[in-house]
C-alpha cells in the first residue's frame, strides 16, 4: 500500500467530517420540535465542530505528494470486493473544506428564514453536507455512488418543502435531470467493475489502461452524469429553476458544493480513467464550455429575478471551470480547481446576500429594489466585494482563477481563450447592471426603511470576504495544494500516445 498515505491523525478525520453531521441529524430526531432554539443550536454546533475537526486537512496536508492522504480503508462487503475506502488529494482537499464551511453558513443564514418544519430542515441540511463530503472523499466506486445518490434525497426535500411557489416543478426537474445522468454512470461503473476484474477500487482501476473503444463509451456514460451536475450547456436548464425556487440555504449548497461534484467527477474519473477518450473530446468540451460562458452570460443581461440571474451566472462561471480542466495543462487545470473553490465562495456568498434581503422583503424581483446603498451601506459593501470577485477583478479570488483558465485555455486553443475572455466583458456588464439596479439611484419606496445587516449576517459573510481577498492577494498556499496532484494527473493524461483527434474522426472510428 505504498501508493497511499494512511491517516496519521488521532481520529479518522474523513469519517468524522462525513458522519458527524449525520450523528447531529440523528440526534435532532429526538429533540422535541417545539424547542426551536435547541434544534438550531445543535445543528450549528455539529456543523461548526465538523468544520473545526476538518481543519487539520488544511494544516497537516502533505503538499509535496500526489498520493491519497488521510486514508481510511476497511472491508465492507467482501463477497463483492466492496470496501469502505476514503482518502483525499490535491483535487479534493479544498472542496472538502469548502463543504464543511458551507454547512455552517447555510445554518446561520436560515436562522430566521425557515419558519416551518424547522427540525426536518436542519436534518436535511446536515445530511446533504455529510453526503457531499462523502462524494469528495470516496475511493471506492460503490461507496462513491451511494453518497452521490444519497445526497439527492435531502436536497430534493430542501427544494420541495421549503422552496418558493413553483418548488414542486423545480425539484422534480432537478431530480429527474440528475438521476438520468447518474443511471448511465452506474452502468459505466458496473461495466468497469466487470471489465477490470471485480474491483470498485478507484485507485486500482486507474492503474489499468483500457482500449480506446471502451474508454469512448465509458467516457460518455460518466460524462452524462457529470455534465448535468456541472451543469454544462445544453443540460443546464434545471439549475435556474432549482436555484430560483430553493430556499437560500438550498441555493448555497447547490452553488457552493453540489455543482462542484460534476467538475470534480471529470478530474477524478474521466481524465485519469479515460485519458485518450478525454483528449479526443477536448474540442467538443471546449465548444460546450465557450457556449456556456457566452450564452449564459448573455441570458444574465435580461433577467428580472435576482436568483435567476445569479443562477445563470453560475452556468457561465462553470463554463470557465470545464474549459480550464480540459485545457489539459497545469494553468488550466489548477485554474479550474481554484475556480471551483472561488465560484463556491463567491456565488455561495451572492446567494447568501440575496437571502439577506429576501428575508426582509420576500421579493426576488430586481425591480422591487433600488437605491439600497442608502439604507443598507454595510450590505452594499459586502455585495460589492462579491460582485467584484464575480467579475474577476484583480485582487479578488475570481481574477486568479479566470486568468489561469484563460491562460491555459489560450495555450491549448487560441479561439477558446479569446472567446472565454469575452465572457469577462459580459460578466462585468450584467453584474454591474444588477448592482446599479439594486443599490444605486433613487431609493425604491418599498425598501426605504429596510434595516441593514445584523451581527449574525455579518458573521456569516465575513469568512467569505476573507477568502475572496486572501485567495486574490496571496493564492500560493491554495495553489500549492494542487501542484503535485495536477502534475501527476497531467502526466497520466498526456502519456497516452494518441494525438488529438477531431470529433468527426473519433465517431468514424467507433462506427467502424
Amino acid at each position, binding site marked *: 500500500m505504498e501508493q497511499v498515505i494512511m491517516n496519521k491523525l488521532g481520529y479518522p478525520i474523513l469519517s468524522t467530517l462525513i458522519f458527524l453531521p449525520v450523528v447531529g441529524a440523528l440526534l435532532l430526531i429526538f429533540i422535541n420540535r417545539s424547542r426551536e432554539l435547541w434544534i438550531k443550536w445543535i445543528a450549528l454546533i455539529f456543523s461548526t465542530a465538523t468544520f473545526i475537526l476538518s481543519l487539520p486537512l488544511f494544516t497537516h496536508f502533505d503538499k509535496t505528494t500526489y498520493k491519497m492522504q488521510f486514508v481510511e480503508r476497511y472491508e465492507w462487503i467482501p463477497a463483492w470486493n466492496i470496501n469502505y475506502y476514503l482518502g483525499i488529494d490535491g483535487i479534493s482537499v479544498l472542496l472538502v473544506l469548502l463543504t464543511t464551511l458551507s454547512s455552517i453558513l447555510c445554518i446561520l443564514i436560515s436562522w430566521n428564514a425557515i419558519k416551518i418544519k424547522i427540525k426536518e430542515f436542519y436534518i436535511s441540511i446536515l445530511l446533504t453536507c455529510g453526503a457531499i463530503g462523502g462524494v469528495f472523499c470516496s475511493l471506492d466506486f460503490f461507496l462513491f455512488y451511494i453518497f452521490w445518490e444519497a445526497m439527492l434525497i435531502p436536497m430534493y426535500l430542501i427544494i420541495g418543502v421549503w422552496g418558493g411557489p413553483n418548488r414542486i416543478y423545480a425539484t422534480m426537474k432537478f431530480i429527474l435531470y440528475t438521476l438520468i445522468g447518474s443511471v448511465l454512470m452506474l452502468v459505466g461503473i458496473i461495466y468497469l467493475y466487470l471489465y477490470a476484474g471485480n474491483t470498485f477500487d478507484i485507485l486500482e482501476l486507474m492503474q489499468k489502461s483500457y482500449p480506446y473503444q471502451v474508454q469512448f463509451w465509458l467516457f460518455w456514460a460518466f460524462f452524462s452524469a457529470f455534465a448535468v451536475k456541472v451543469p454544462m450547456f445544453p443540460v443546464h436548464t434545471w439549475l435556474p429553476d432549482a436555484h430560483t425556487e430553493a430556499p437560500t440555504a438550498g441555493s448555497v449548497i447547490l452553488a457552493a458544493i453540489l455543482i462542484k461534484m460534476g467538475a470534480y467527477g471529470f478530474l477524478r474519473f474521466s481524465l485519469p480513467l479515460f485519458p485518450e477518450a478525454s483528449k479526443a473530446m477536448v474540442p467538443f468540451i471546449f465548444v460546450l464550455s465557450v457556449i456556456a460562458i457566452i450564452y449564459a452570460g448573455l441570458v444574465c443581461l435580461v433577467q428580472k429575478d435576482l436568483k435567476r440571474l445569479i443562477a445563470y451566472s453560475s452556468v457561465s462561471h462553470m463554463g470557465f471551470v470545464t474549459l480550464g480542466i480540459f485545457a489539459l495543462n*497545469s494553468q488550466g487545470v489548477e485554474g479550474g480547481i481554484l475556480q471551483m473553490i472561488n465560484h463556491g465562495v463567491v456565488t455561495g456568498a451572492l446567494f447568501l446576500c440575496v437571502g439577506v434581503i429576501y428575508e426582509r422583503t420576500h421579493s426576488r424581483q430586481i425591480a422591487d429594489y433600488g437605491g439600497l446603498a442608502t439604507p443598507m451601506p454595510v450590505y452594499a459593501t459586502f455585495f460589492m466585494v462579491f460582485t467584484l470577485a464575480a467579475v474577476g477583478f484583480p485582487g479578488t479570488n475570481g481574477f486568479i482563477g479566470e486568468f489561469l483558465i484563460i491562460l491555459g485555455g489560450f495555450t491549448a486553443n487560441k479561439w477558446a481563450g479569446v472567446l472565454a475572455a469575452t465572457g469577462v466583458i459580459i460578466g462585468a456588464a450584467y453584474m454591474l447592471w444588477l448592482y446599479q439596479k439594486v443599490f444605486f439611484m433613487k431609493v425604491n419606496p418599498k425598501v426605504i426603511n429596510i434595516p441593514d445587516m445584523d451581527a449574525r449576517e455579518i458573521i456569516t459573510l465575513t469568512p467569505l470576504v476573507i477568502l475572496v481577498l486572501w485567495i486574490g492577494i496571496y493564492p500560493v498556499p491554495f495553489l500549492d495544494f494542487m501542484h503535485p496532484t495536477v502534475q501527476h494527473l497531467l502526466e497520466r493524461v498526456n502519456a497516452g500516445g494518441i494525438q488529438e483527434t477531431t470529433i468527426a474522426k473519433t465517431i468514424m472510428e467507433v462506427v467502424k
Partner: protein
Amino acid sequence: MELYVLIPFLPLAAFVINILFGKRYIKDQAHWFSCLAIIGSFVISVITLIDVIGGRVIDKDLYTWIISGDFKVSVGFLVDQLTVVMLFVVTGVGSLIHIYSIGYMHGDKGYYRFFAYLSLFVFFMLLLVMGNNFLLLYVGWEGVGLCSYFLIGFWFEKRAAADAGKKAFIVNRFGDFGFALGIIMIFLTFGTIQYAPVFSQVKGVIGQTVNFLGFEVDLITLIALLLFCGAVGKSAQIPLHVWLPDAMEGPTPVSALIHAATMVTAGVFMVARCNPIFNPSEVAMNVVAITGAVTSLFAATIAMTQNDIKRVIAYSTVSHLGMMFTACGVGAYAAGIFHLYTHAFFKALLFLAAGSVIHAVHHNDIQRMGGLRKYLPITYATMFIAALSAGGVPGFAGFFSKDEILWSTFASGSPVGMLVWILITAVAFFTPFYSFRMIFLAFHGKFRGTHHEEHHLHESPKVMTIPLMLLAAGALGAGWIGIPALLGGSAQFTHFLEPVVGHPELHGTHADEWGIMGLSTTIAVSGIIIAAIMYLIKTGVPLILARRFSFIYRTLFNKYYVDELYHFIIIKPALWIAYGFIERFTDAKIIEGIVNGVPRTIGKFSEILRKIQTGFVYHYAIIMAAGILFIAALFLL
C-alpha cells in the same frame, strides 16, 4: 524594507482606515488620513526621485504571487526614470487635488467615502506605475478603473452618474480584453511576464510570425497591438473614447485627478514602458501615431461646440492624450511623457478652476454664466493661465511639450510622421480656440443667469484657491526643465528619460525647427484671436455660423453620433440576442421544449396504454381470444 515600498501602501492604509471607521467615527475628518498619506507618498517619491537622479534603479520582488506550472509571477516593484516621473505627477498633483477636495466636498454626506475611494485610487495608480511585471500593471489598471467607477458614480442616487460609472467600466473592459490577451501572448512568447526579461528577449523574436485565429501575423505587431487595445480604452482614444465625457458626472476633483492628471494617462505610460515591444513593429507604431492624431483632432472639433464646462475640458483631455500617443507613435516617447507631465498641471488646473466656478454657480452650462471674473478673480486668473498653457502659448509649460511633439513628428522623416504632423498642427488651432471660447463665455461679458444665482456668486475658500495657485505656477513653469537646445535650454527632461525610452532619430535643420515653432505659435495665437472676435466682439457670429453650417454644427454638437451608433450596433443586438433569441427561443422553446416534452410524450403514451388496463376480466378474455385467433390464423395460412 526600503522606504519606496511605502509609496503605494500609505494611501492603501488610509483607504482601509476610512472605509472601516469612516461612517461611525471619522466622518468629516476623513481628509486627514487621505491627505497625510498622499503627502507622505509625495515626500518619499521626491526622495526616490533624487535617488534615481543619482543613478539608482530598483527592480525587486516582494513575494511570489501566483505559481502554476511554468507560470510564475511576483509582486515586485520597478523604480526607474519613467516610474519616478509618474510618481511625481501622481503624488504631487494628487496631493493638491486632495487638499482642494477638502473644500469642494465639504458637507457632502459621503465625505468619508469620497476620501476612502480617492486613497484607494491613488494606491492602484501607484501600483500601476511601480509594478515590475505586466500582471501587476494589469492589477493597477483594473484597480484605477474600479475606483473611477466608484467615483464617477459617487452621487449614485443620480441615474446619469450611475450610468456613466457603469459605462466607463464596461467600455474599459473592451480594451482590457485585448490587453489581457496581449499579456497572455507575452507569456507564451517569452515564458515570463516580467518587464526586464521580456524586453531583453524582444530582439530574438523580431520577424517571427504566429497563427492567430487563422491569420498568419507578425508576432511583435500582434503583441503590441493587443497591448495598445488596453491603452485605447483607458486613455479614451477612438473608438473607445465614449466613456470619458460621460465620466464628468463625477465630482470635479475626481475629473481633475483621474480623468486628467493620472488614470487616463496610464495608456501613454504603458506604451512608453513597453517601447521595446512597440519599436520593432512599424505597423504598431503607425497605428499608435494615427489613432492618436485622429483622436486628437476629432475630440478638439467636438470641444468647440459643447456647452457643459466640464465636457469641454474632457474633450480637451481626449485631444491632448491623442497628442501624447502621436508622440509615442513616432518614437518620441520622452516628448509624450513630457506632455503627460505638463498636461497634468494645466489640465488638473482647468478642471479644478471649473470646479470652483461650479461651486459658485451650481451648474455646468457656460451659456448661463458670463462676467464671472468680477466675482471669482483668483479662479479667473488661474484658469486663464491654464488656458494659455493648454493652448501652447510660448513660455508656458504646454508650449514646450507640444512643440517637442510637433517637431518630433515633423522631423521623423516618415510619411506617417508628416500626416500626423498636419493633423496635430490643425489641433494646435482648435485647442486655444475652444479653451478661450470657454473662458470668454464664462468669465467675460454680462452674467446670463438669474438674479437669484447672481446674488450667490462668491470666490471659493482658500483651501481651494491655494491649490489653484500652486497648479497655476506649475502650468506656467513646469515646462522649463524641458526647454529645447534651440531656445537655449538643455532638454533635461528628455535626457533624463533616455535610459528607459531611448531617443528618436530626427531629421531637420535648425531653420526647420524655428519654422515649426513659429507656425504653431502663429496658429495658437490666431486661435485665441478668433475666439476673442467671436465671443467678445461680434457675439452674434457663432449663432450665424451654427445656422449656416447647421449640419456640421449638429454633427459636432452630437459628438459625431458615436454613442448612438454603438447603441444600435452593439447594445441593441446584444440585448436582442439575449432576450429575443436565447432567453425566449433556445432556452425556453428548444431545450425546455425537449426537457418538458419528453416526459409529456411518455405521459401521453402511458395514458393510451392505461386505457387497455381496464381491470375487467372479460376485456382481457376477449383480447386473449382475439390473440389466439390471430396466431392460429398465422399458422393456418
